[in-house]
């Protein structure tokens, strides 16, 4: 385990990989290690997601005035938890209005059903979420390649 980590750090120091790639490799290494030797009995609890990551990589080849755009966002899961708990602060009358509006738009969802237990389950499921989007846009002088990655770590 330590040997693999050292190899990654060596590759980083030699400039073979970027800091972001090194971070991703170390996270993957930690995850695989957690899955091999679960601490609390279940591998899922061992590797509980702490952050939601959004990575956007665009080469912007279509617009020569702009360089490549890179976005790296890390949102703590704690913030998502607190955000969902905000629904508990919606006054009952307003909640009824929201539920009614959702039903009218064909979304059969009841906001009062969001409970802390459901929330934990939802966040646990987010752990397995990975969204990869690759887009090639024909724009201006060339093709613009955009890569979006959303995952939990």
């Amino acid at each position, binding site marked *: 385990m330590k040997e693999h980590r050292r190899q990654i750090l060596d590759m980083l120091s030699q400039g073979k990989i970027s800091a972001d790639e090194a971070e991703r490799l170390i996270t993957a290494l930690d995850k695989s290690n957690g899955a091999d030797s679960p601490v609390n009995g279940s591998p899922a609890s061992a590797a509980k997601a*702490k*952050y939601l990551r959004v990575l956007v990589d665009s080469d*912007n080849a279509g617009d020569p005035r*702009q*360089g*490549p*755009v*890179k*976005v*790296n*966002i*890390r*949102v*703590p899961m*704690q*913030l*998502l*938890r*607190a*955000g969902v*708990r*905000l629904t*508990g*602060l919606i*006054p*009952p*009358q307003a909640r009824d209005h929201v539920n009614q509006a959702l039903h009218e738009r064909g979304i059969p969802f009841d906001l009062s059903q969001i409970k802390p237990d459901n929330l934990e389950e939802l966040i646990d499921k987010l752990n397995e979420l990975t969204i990869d989007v690759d887009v090639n846009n024909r724009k201006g002088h060339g093709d613009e390649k955009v890569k979006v990655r959303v995952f939990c770590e």
Partner: protein
Amino acid sequence: MIPLIGVVSVRRWPRSRSFRLWVPLFLLWLLMLPLMLLLLPVLFIVCLISQVNPFQAIATIWGILAGFRDTHIEIDNGEALVLVRIL
């Protein structure tokens, strides 16, 4: 634990002129504390009118503030890099 420090860093390429601003959020919380205490009765009245548990409201607001800790936003457009971190 609520965030205590915010870091805003801006770096411009290729001159590599950069600045880094450390924002002492703990001072902001200290300064806002008297204001929050003054606003507490107002919050309670608003919560009672809207039939919301005021303690739950305070816990949620605290949770959101605490949730911002460890947030990391980095945007690089090839000419400049902007980094916002909340610690």
